[in-house]
């Protein structure tokens, strides 16, 4: 009975299998004739159908004659499961079917450890030529499952077997089985293998790179990869190679790799981003700015329209889920790119362009369109008040004091109610306990609020002194100083100052210097002298304060002191660290200018006459 029915069943099952596969293939070939929605529904239907078929096949006892068909159906079925991201289900199916097959050929139940399991499977099933091909198919599938669940260890252990896959798969083709109707496969195993190979290279390279084993990663990545691989994957390999090179101190070679990556895939923004980092490292500001501009425009491009058809059964993205890879290939959000672009522009000459970028950035923040880009990367944007202040200071640099005043007003009005009467800081500041539920209220923003508000007043005062309204300038400098005086820092023998405290001191220095300079213009030389001296005490790095102090001493007729001070400033290298100082706390570019050459001439003449 079974003898009769078996081929009949076999044929029917084969037909059923082929019908499902054909239906899917037809849909795939038809292209845009159907909607994506319909494609997804069809995929779901196929998934259900193939599973039903498999249940039917596995409903009877496993016989050797059925093994080939069953394994092929399992292959298809698992692929459908894979497309529905039912990975555990697929793996379970896979192992279960293989165990059935092994049982059919009379082998023992293999151990669950995958490498040993597969050694056994290949030994017992792979030796049969008719079964070898479909066994290897399943090995491919298992490979894919390992890859998509990031179990690279298994791949590593079965390296030899996987490498020999290509011959086996090729051989399977040649030894065509007797049956007239051959069970169709959803994806040709060789294509799958090629894809898996390159994805494995990428995954391994990324893993090694993350562990810091750059040279090993490099050797992995430089393995020959098939040129037929998808462009995006090739570009990723190039990018990762570039990363290895730049981490091993070869930025120029890295640049070459990034360029290759971009040539391979224009949308490989990551390579662009990495090349920006290299330019930054090399100090090539202009190139960096250009690259930033390019990156921003690429990021702002509408995403490539998704094809109408359903995604392929196996897409590279599902094979490469690793956290390490995505962190390596992450790209900052358009907003933070825009921010770095604006900052670079302002710092390196093209102020007006920088201002435009800042304004674009602020506008983008106010609108809700930015939500459309779902980037979830670590924050690279500064706090918003700082952003406002940076924009304000760049507006001032671009000679637009009125706009700067308005922006600062916004910061001031926002922070006004939050300003503390007094603020006692203990150095070093106690770190907030991580993981504790968020505090209501401002928490560590308390110092921030003071600094932002103070900096806003400082910028406003700069604006007024730019407009030569010295009275208003003095008023606003005084406000800034009064505000900063509310903060009391208690030092506990800690030498290294924290950023907040350093900012506080710099602010204080700038405000005092600014007020001193304004006083000079109001012809209040004594007040001016006092403020400038206080400024130099508060923050020694303020260059203009020193010059103005010399000038004021000179005007007060205290030439001896002026000359002495001049000599002191000239001798001490004033190149104090302005690293990490926010844009709005740099020395104002537009304020009242001092005729430096004139001062130098006067003072040096005086010094010379005194010496002679």
């Amino acid at each position: 009975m079974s003898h009769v029915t078996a081929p009949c069943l076999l044929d029917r099952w084969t037909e059923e299998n082929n019908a499902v596969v054909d239906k899917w293939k037809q849909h795939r070939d038809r292209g845009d004739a159907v909607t994506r929605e319909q494609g997804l529904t069809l995929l779901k239907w196929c998934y259900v159908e193939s599973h039903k078929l498999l249940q039917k096949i596995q409903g009877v006892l496993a016989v050797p004659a059925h093994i080939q068909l069953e394994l092929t159906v399992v292959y298809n079925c698992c692929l459908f499961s894979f497309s529905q991201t039912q990975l555990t289900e697929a793996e379970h199916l896979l192992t279960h079917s293989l165990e059935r097959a092994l049982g059919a050929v009379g082998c023992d139940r293999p151990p669950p450890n995958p490498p040993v399991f597969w050694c056994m499977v290949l030994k017992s099933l792979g030796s049969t030529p008719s079964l070898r091909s479909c066994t290897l198919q399943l090995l491919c599938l298992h490979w894919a499952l390992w890859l998509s669940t990031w179990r690279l260890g298994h791949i590593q252990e079965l390296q030899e077997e996987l490498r020999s896959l290509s011959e086996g798969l090729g051989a399977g083709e040649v030894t065509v089985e007797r049956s007239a109707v051959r069970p169709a496969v959803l994806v040709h195993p060789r294509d799958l293998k090629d894809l898996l190979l390159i994805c494995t290279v990428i995954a391994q390279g990324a893993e090694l790179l993350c562990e810091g084993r750059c040279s090993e990663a490099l050797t992995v990545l430089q393995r020959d990869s098939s040129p037929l691989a998808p462009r995006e994957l090739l570009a990723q390999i190039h990018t990762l190679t570039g990363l290895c090179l730049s981490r091993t101190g070869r930025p120029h070679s890295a640049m070459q790799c990034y360029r290759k990556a971009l040539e391979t895939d224009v949308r490989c923004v990551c390579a662009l981003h990495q090349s920006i980092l290299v330019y930054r490292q090399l100090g090539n500001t202009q190139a960096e700015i250009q690259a930033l501009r390019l990156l921003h425009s690429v990021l702002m491009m509408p995403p490539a329209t998704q094809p109408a058809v359903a995604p392929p059964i196996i897409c590279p993205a599902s094979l490469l889920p690793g956290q390490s890879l995505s962190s390596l290939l992450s790209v900052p959000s358009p907003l933070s790119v825009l921010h770095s672009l604006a900052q670079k522009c302002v710092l390196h000459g093209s102020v007006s362009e920088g201002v435009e970028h800042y304004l674009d950035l602020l506008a983008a923040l106010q609108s809700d369109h930015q939500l459309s880009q779902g980037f979830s990367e670590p924050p690279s944007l500064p706090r918003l008040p700082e952003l406002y202040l940076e924009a304000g200071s760049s507006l001032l640099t671009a000679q637009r004091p009125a706009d700067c005043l308005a922006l600062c007003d916004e910061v001031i009005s926002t922070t006004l109610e939050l300003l503390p009467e007094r603020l006692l800081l203990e150095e070093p500041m106690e770190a907030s306990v991580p993981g504790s539920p968020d505090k209501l209220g401002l928490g560590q923003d308390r110092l921030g609020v003071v600094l932002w508000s103070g900096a806003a007043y400082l910028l406003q005062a700069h604006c007024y002194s730019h407009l030569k309204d010295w009275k208003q300038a003095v008023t606003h400098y005084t406000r800034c100083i009064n505000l900063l005086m509310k903060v009391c820092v208690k030092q506990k023998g800690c030498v290294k100052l924290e950023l907040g405290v350093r900012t506080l001191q710099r602010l204080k220095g700038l405000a005092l210097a600014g007020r001193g300079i304004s006083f000079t213009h109001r012809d209040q030389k004594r007040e001016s002298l006092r403020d400038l001296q206080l400024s130099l005490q508060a923050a020694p790095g303020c260059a203009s304060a020193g010059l103005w102090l010399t000038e004021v001493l000179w005007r007060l007729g205290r030439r001896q002191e002026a000359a002495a001070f001049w000599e002191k400033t000239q001798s001490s290298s004033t190149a104090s660290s302005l690293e990490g100082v926010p844009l709005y706390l740099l020395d104002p570019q537009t304020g009242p200018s001092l005729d430096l050459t004139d001062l130098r001439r006067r003072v040096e003449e005086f010094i010379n006459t005194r010496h002679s």
Partner: protein
Amino acid sequence: MEARCAVVETWAEFGCPSPGTAANVIWSGEDVLICTGSDEVLVFNTQELKLTAVLQFLSPVCHMVLSEDKQSVYAVCESDGVYCVSLPTLHPRSPTPPADQSPGPALFKVSSNSLAARDKGVCSLIEVGGSGGTLVTVSLRDAAWWFTLYKAADHQKLTQFSLPVVSVGHHVESEENGAAGLVMRPVLACVYSSDAPPLSSSSTTTKLPPLSSSLGGKHFFLEPLLFKLLFGVDAALINSPMILCGLPDGRLCSLPLLLPGRSGSCVRVLHSMEQPITFIGTTTGTNDGPQCLVAVGQWGRVVLVRTCEGGPEEGSKVAALTEGCVSGPVVCVCAGREGLYYSTGSDLLALDLPGVREAAPKPEESLVVGHGERQGQGQAMVRESATLQSPVSLNVCRVIALAGPSHNASGIVQLVALSLRGRLQRLTLPKGTEVGGIPRLPLSQVGQRVRDLLAAIGDVCERASVLKSTIQSKNHSLRHLNQVLNVCCLLLANQNSGEQLPVSKKPIRCHVVAKWSRLLQRDSLNLTCVLDNSSPYVLERNWTFCVRVLPLSYPLPAGGENTSQTFSFPFQKLEPGGRMEVLLPLTAAGDTSFPVTVSCSLFYSLQSLLGSEELSRLLANGEPASCLGLEGGWVSLPLDTLTVDWLDALQVTGTTPPHRDPNRPSISPDTVSMDIVEAFLSTRRIRGSGRGDGEGGGERMVASDGGLFSASIKVSTELLRGTLGLEPPGSAGPSQGVCGSVLGWLLSQGTGGEDWSGRGDKRGQESSVVYARCLGRHTVKLTAKEVTVGDTSVKEVKEAVEVQVQCSSMAAVCGLHHAVLSRVQALLQGTAGTRESSMGVQGLGLRQALQRAQVLSEHLQEARIPEAIGLGMTTGQTTKTLFSIYRQLRENPLLIL
């Protein structure tokens, strides 16, 4: 427990809501949407008091939410996901005629085309910003709460955030809830800072102060300070709406809608209530009183979040959290103006919240979360429960869903409720008193405000003083200008009306006196110029008195240039009636050619008044300035033009010839001897000429070989008497009187107008002979004597006075002659046409004069011929000839009448 009764009015009755699902009522305008857990949503019209539409979904609806603009309703179906149905489409009033009252409500089948988000796990959702905004759904999946953001317009998925589930007791609780007929789902609300415009442009949301119900029960405003304290400065800066989510595990989370990915954890846990949250909302007073955020837990815990003064060392505001407790379970809540209305299933209660009617609790009583110590929450809760007032029972039972409240104009509060039995009820609440808070300025801003105000006052003060001084200076300028204009008018009117005004009547006049002075043994002639200000105006600073001295005739070589000299004297202040006397050196003796013209004028400089800048601007304008004659910013007003002639420059020495004076060594012996000789000669000459030939009257100038020249002029005595005001001859006095007064007049009259006696010897007054020293230190003899002129034969005899000038210097004689003539001319001008002349005498004279003129002209021609034809006649000869012609010209036989 105090109790008040609410009036219950049952509108309709539907089937019992299926147990285990949360019934939901939404009250939007005229419509009430009722969801009882079946696959239908009912739309009840409160005006017509009947069901108007039924929405039939494909599967049971477990939750529904109104969109912010109230234009659509979102329904969560158990098996599909979120559907979006536009509400206006439910009112197809026009196709169905109004007569068609009887048939039942319209049935709308909601197809899968209305599916907004295909997500089976959606528990709760909220829509922010209307159709252009965002849809936020919360779903429970893979042991995490997923917040998913969709675009409201096309339901495109934007982004996703997750928050891991922490409470393990959740399921246990939900089973309990199931027993109580409740399914807990996350509660969502959207908070705006009340100084920020809401994202949607719908008109309903612009109403302020916003009532929580006015924003659809899920959207409300929070006062800016509390907003900033809770959600940070960044969210406040970009006016990001915040999504608040109360999870069934008791956590109160916030999610910014606009903030870019600041750190991975966008979702912040603000607080944990430790029991399922059934309600999040705000209470708002009628005025801008302190506002608080309220969260109510299922078992009766009430958390109020509001601003509060910080600790003493901070001095700033902090967000304070007050926990209280009411008896649970709390089935449904809605927020009113004064507090909350909640149902326990067996009763409906109204809870007044502290902070709305009373002041905020003292910080030490409340749990100040800003400090971070969460010491003994249970304790805090117990202590805090006292701060909650006890709720007031409204005596309505079995309410499972509430909507509203609505406040009508008379202050009556109404709620819509759904009872456990499926009755839709309107509850009219007893009137409560409403007390508004007083808006106060936060203390922290007072100092700043005062400083601002002071600074503003300072500014205004400064500006005012600047303006004041400007006004003062302008006033000053105007006053000056007025003066200047007055003076100008006065003088110009004077000018225009001609020279008729006698000198003495001019308001501002000047006269000149020449005086000899002796300094360092040199005689010099000084001109004293006196300005009389008889005008009513003060001549102040900026006025300048200018005297220009210009010789009437001057030597040719210097003729190319103007040899005039200008002296200017600035005024200090010349009061009306005052006079200013200035002294100007005319010349060292003999340097100047007399007569000289002295022009006096007043100058006014606009520059000192206006300042150079303004002046240059004024001048640059051109037209008005040039109209005013303001070239160079000067106003020039001519006063008088006076002449100083030889007569004025005479130094009268006496009526006798001067003798040698040993006290005067500067005079050379030559001069002295000359004088003596001259005197002698002159006496002879006078006698000689006195004997004279028949020529009689007229004028003569005779030069003797000894170098004494003389010239004479005859003036009729009658004329002199008349003009000089002398008494007629017959009345008294000798003829000497006429002669003397003529001399006196000559020597005194004119430029100076001063008393003649001051200038010379007293004795000279009466004599008809005066000796004087003229320029060049020549002695001059002036003689006046009475003569008769005319042909005795014709009986036409006129009495006349002959004035004779004798001097050794030709120039002096000429000059004096000219001076005398011009005086007489002036005299004649004054009396012109007043007398008839005796034609006979003059006719004779005229004839003679004509003849003489002819002869002289011939002589002149002759004298010029040789020069013209280039014959070498010596210059000496020519000069001689010309000189003699000139002398003869001088001899005018005419008698001046």
